[in-house]
């Protein structure tokens, strides 16, 4: 039971078609309101600027970009870390230039898990925190200059060892102190990490800047067992008015799966 309907975006790689315009036509017909871009490494998003500008001219709505790189701003290796920060700054600049709202990144992905051997990371928790705060401060300052927002995404314990829960992201963001850094929540990770996902949303409140959705099994919303009505009710209860981007794999026939999401989300968020 919510008062507002979520603005729904679909990540670009899920949509059929070779151009953003083709994808947009499909997305609109399926009931999506926007397309979330994927930001690859080596300044790939910057190199796509002509394509993005053409898409914008043709009416394609591109609110956000989600990082798609092999290393991140929390990397153990200082050179990779530096590169990730530069990549994210570039992605923030691009998304600002095309009038979007922000860029999403985790602290790291696939680098280390405390739940898998060798269990003990090569860097201490205090050093992790120092690295993350430095990265968030630098990226936050850049986002502020560009008039956009960096979304820090907590990942589940098997994908990242540093930021798994919303309260950890909130703590880092408060400590980093930039109003241009917000939390990008993801229902799939929350289902694993949060004792009560709805309560976690209420607790973080206005610090939540972006939302990604996939079900408990990483498939499209509706394919698993997440309690979607309560998820959207909690977002509505904090007055969340940002984007909800579908980032998932597709179970069953991809076309039916993709077309099924908007009516499903509107029903469970109604």
């Amino acid at each position, binding site marked *: *039971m919510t*008062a507002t309907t979520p603005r729904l975006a679909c990540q670009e790689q899920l949509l059929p078609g070779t151009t953003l315009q083709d994808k947009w036509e499909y997305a609109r017909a399926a009931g999506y309101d926007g397309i979330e871009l994927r930001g690859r490494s080596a300044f790939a998003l910057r190199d796509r600027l002509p394509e993005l500008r053409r898409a914008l001219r043709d009416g394609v709505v591109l609110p956000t970009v989600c990082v798609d790189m092999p290393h991140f701003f929390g990397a153990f290796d200082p050179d990779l870390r530096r590169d990730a920060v530069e990549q994210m700054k570039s992605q923030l600049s691009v998304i600002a230039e095309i009038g979007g709202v922000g860029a999403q990144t985790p602290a790291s992905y696939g680098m280390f898990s405390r739940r898998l051997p060798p269990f003990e990371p090569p860097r201490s928790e205090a050093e992790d925190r120092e690295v993350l705060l430095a990265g968030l401060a630098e990226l936050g300052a850049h986002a502020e200059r560009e008039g956009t927002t960096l979304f820090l995404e907590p990942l589940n314990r098997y994908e990242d060892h540093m930021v798994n829960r919303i309260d950890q992201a909130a703590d880092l963001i408060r400590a980093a102190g930039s109003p241009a850094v917000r939390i990008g929540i993801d229902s799939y990770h929350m289902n694993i990490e949060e*004792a*009560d996902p*709805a*309560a976690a949303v*209420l607790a973080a409140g206005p610090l939540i800047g972006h939302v990604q959705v996939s079900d408990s099994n990483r498939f499209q919303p509706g394919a698993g067992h997440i*309690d979607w*009505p*309560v998820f959207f*009710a*909690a977002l*509505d*209860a904090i*007055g969340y008015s940002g984007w909800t981007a579908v980032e998932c794999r597709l179970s069953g026939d991809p076309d039916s799966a993709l077309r099924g999401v908007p009516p499903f989300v509107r029903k469970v968020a109604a």
Partner: protein
Amino acid sequence: MTAAPVAADAPAAPAATDADLRRAAVRVLLGNWTGSSTLPSRTLYPHQWSWDSAFIMLGLRHISPYRAQRELESMLGAQWADGRLPHIAFHPATPPGAYFPGPDFWRSASAGSAPPGVPTSGIVQPPVHALAAWETHRADPVASRRRGFLERVRPGLAAWHRYLADRRDLGGRGLAAVVHPWESGMDNSPAWDAPLARVEPAAAGSFRRRDLDHADVADRPTDLDYGRYVRLAADYRDHGYDDRATPFGFAVEDPSFNALLVLSEHALADITAELGGDPAPHRERAAALTEALVGALWDPGAGLFLCRDLIGGAPIREYGVAGLVPLAVPGLPVAADLLRTALGERFRVGGVHLVPSYDLTGPAFEPGRYWRGPGWFNMSWLVHLGLLRHGAPAQAAALRASMLAAAARTGFAEYVDPYSGEGRGTRDFSWTAATVLDLLSREV
């Protein structure tokens, strides 16, 4: 009139629009969720209460049908083998001393019929559960069927109703009796004053109240009454909660309790039919209960249903909201007269804030004290249903508006002064938020 002090939980900022009010109500219910059920209040009532859960389901179903289903499944997890649904299922994460009387007092583990592993009380509360189960199913029939919700809860609900029919017809007139004021849910109603006066209070030093830690003493029952409550509960406990063996010092037929049983019996008929069974026995039972209710407790002179004291053997001539609740019963033969009473000077429904819990003109009326005058949202929700059911839509709309305004103004107070509209008791009260959410989900 002094403002009610609010100790632990400050009220939320007043909600300006229906959308704001809805969001605030959702925040209350999400905030009071424990993972398997909803606390009536984080401070004053830190466990699962039986009839609270049912009223909470009526609102929770609009947020999450799944959580509403879980709410009842969790309650039924505390059901005794004899079918009784205890009035409290104690929450394991809450410290044992946080509420009195707690698990150490009730000692449910020593009663043969209680479930292992879940400490509970031994008394009951009004049977609103089948009604709440059916309404929860109706909120999302697809999700309900996928989880087999009704299949799962129907046997427990049927056993609960059977317990009331088999073990609680103490008057032999086809109605269920309550054996403790708390069983009515209207703990401190003036209707209990006379029957309670016969009860020897438990010694003042033999127990320690916890309710006054979180609420204003002026809003709560007196110490003397509390001693009597403790005595009645201890006697029941000391007879193993055996309804045939306990020499009850208190036994009353309460029209609200029985009217809610009628509503739930109709709901059980709907549930049974939905599952492909024969609803007729439940319809017949609902009809028989309605007839018994009117035959035994309707007072034509008062134009109201009265409680009957089974020990004293006479009607209790205190006019309370319990006597108005049968208005929610479909096909009530005396509805027109009861409607007149609801709109008359004793209750002034639509003219004061909520439905007063006790006769505004009665000798025991106190606008702020627990169940002795202030309006409650669950009772008002039932009277609202009755007004709609029996052709008083304008008055129903006025009552609805007063409930929404009071909830917004008081930060979901537990109860409300009918004259000033001031909030009383605790804030962020779950069934206040739940009944308001339900009203917001419909036009009238």
